[in-house]
């Protein structure tokens, strides 16, 4: 990594789901795809979507930019262990 993540340590999510399972339900419903929450605290939420086809990966890339309730911090795309599949990591941060 060249730079560290810059997140305001004082700021907290204004509309944070109450628990990690609530967050998974909320984001799975929003993205219409099973979301796994790998990091969850008052300042940062990271979602994982695994083994996506090219079409589904593009759909999620587009969809994550449309959500305006949380600030989009970063999106990572990694080729999946399955051939021609991708894993996507989406991180939303507090303000």
């Amino acid at each position, binding site marked *: *990594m*060249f*730079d560290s*993540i*810059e*997140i305001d340590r004082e700021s907290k999510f*204004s*509309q944070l789901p109450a628990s990690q399972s609530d967050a998974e339900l909320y984001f799975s419903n929003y993205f*219409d*795809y099973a979301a796994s929450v790998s990091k969850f605290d008052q300042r940062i939420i990271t979602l994982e979507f695994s083994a996506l086809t090219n079409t*589904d990966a593009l*759909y999620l*890339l*587009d*969809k*994550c*930019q*449309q*959500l*305006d*309730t*949380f*600030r*989009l*911090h*970063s*999106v*990572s*795309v*990694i*080729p999946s262990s399955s051939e021609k599949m991708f894993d996507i990591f989406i991180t939303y*941060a507090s*303000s």
Partner: protein
Amino acid sequence: MNKQVFRFISPDNIELYNIKRGKLIFKDRIKSKDCAKIKTDKVILTASHYVSASMLAESVKFVPEKGQFLFSDQSILRIEDLIHIPAIYDEVHNTWKQFWASSHLLLDIKTLIPSAKYFYPECLALTEHDTNKDNLSDAKFLNDAISFQPIKSRDKNKLFLFTLIAGIFLAIAPWISHWFDYNSKERLVFENKVLLIQYFEQLAVSSELSGLKKLTFNKSLKSIEIITHDLLNEIQKSEVEKFCKELSCKIKFDNNQININFQKRLSSE
């Protein structure tokens, strides 16, 4: 309410679709009498229910305002019955295109489908539509496409409703400022469009990047981090440097890792 959409062909031929991951999945073909049971506010209009026309941008010579109708000489509808959506600029053909429909007709459809609010011209709301199929299954539905939104109400009790709402408004007026302050603190809206993705698409083409191991778009730092399986060759490095010079961004190479920072360019993002 948002996961289904009707496609209105005729009162006796209405298709119901589920929206799954942005794509339409055909569910059922129903008649108008069954529509009231299904709660969805979206209706796709087939081509016979609206009209469209376009004209060369040069002949307009101004940017049309949202409420402006450009084709009054081509419409046979009475102006009070006409509902239109704002003119759309087509960059490829350098034209202004506009869609319009009969407000009366849309309200008649709304009577059949009481929950309907947004009426999408079919050719605006769909992409990847296989015209060989007899329905729209697998077509991509553009939820944010522009739609007709007939606002006229036929409710005979409109005046009564208005008076009632005005009465309630006056009654709660002393608390409104407090409520507004509370909500403005609670509801923050973020602009999450990531322009970095478009830049990466340009870069990937110009420098023929391949063998990606990890790709990260960091909107907070306004940077793209690219990790490849193999080291970049000199030609690829040169192309990346050329790209960065043109876009005034900073670049760092570290073995098979590239970090491109757009801080200067995207300072307003």
